[in-house]
């Protein structure tokens, strides 16, 4: 049972344009969400997060939007850069759950120069 789903395995965008990565979840009890970025042969690194009490969080070129009624979150990257090419994982957690994140399958983003 996949509680966190990223239905698009891959996304390709042109440099300078917007990248939108999507994530859906099934458990309405999740109260914190994160995005991780992963380059080949490296471990994931934290990118941005959002609490369920907010609907938007922004950090530079990266913005995460949360739609609780739709159980959907998205990561916007504006403008996209070739160095953003990586696998992006969304993750969710029950805050009482000792840091046990539930990850989506990942979306591979390619930003073309």
């Amino acid at each position, binding site marked *: 049972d996949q509680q966190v789903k990223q239905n698009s395995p891959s996304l390709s965008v042109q440099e300078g344009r917007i990248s939108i990565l999507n994530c859906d979840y099934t458990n309405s009890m999740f109260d914190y969400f994160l995005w991780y970025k992963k380059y080949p*042969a490296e471990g994931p690194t934290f990118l941005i997060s959002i609490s369920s009490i907010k609907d938007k969080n922004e950090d530079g070129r990266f913005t995460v939007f949360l739609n609780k009624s739709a159980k959907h979150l998205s990561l916007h990257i504006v403008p996209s850069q070739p160095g953003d090419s990586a696998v992006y*994982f969304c993750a969710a957690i029950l805050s009482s759950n000792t*840091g*046990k994140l539930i990850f989506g399958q990942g979306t591979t983003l390619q930003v073309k120069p």
Partner: protein
Amino acid sequence: NAGVTQTPKFRILKIGQSMTLQCAQDMNHNYMYWYRQDPGMGLKLIYYSVGAGITDKGEVPNGYNVSRSTTEDFPLRLELAAPSQTSVYFCASSPSGNYYELYFGPGTRLTVT
């Protein structure tokens, strides 16, 4: 700070062999985690530890064992390796259970044939 380190980077095991994946962190983090990532899948939690001497099962603990004798080290033991354990293994740490921005190691790629 080296952060989270993992050894070995790569390993090929024969069915039925055993091995220990090493993980160490130098950030004095109490919480440590072992995840596995199968192709096209998200990371799944194998085991976690909330401090020296305390460990607990995650989503997919079967076929693995862990120990946590020090704050720094969190080895993962595979007994009687099976092809289903072919995966990339990531160790992660965080300072506390309600700090969700995990620090990941670079991973160990394990093939069981």
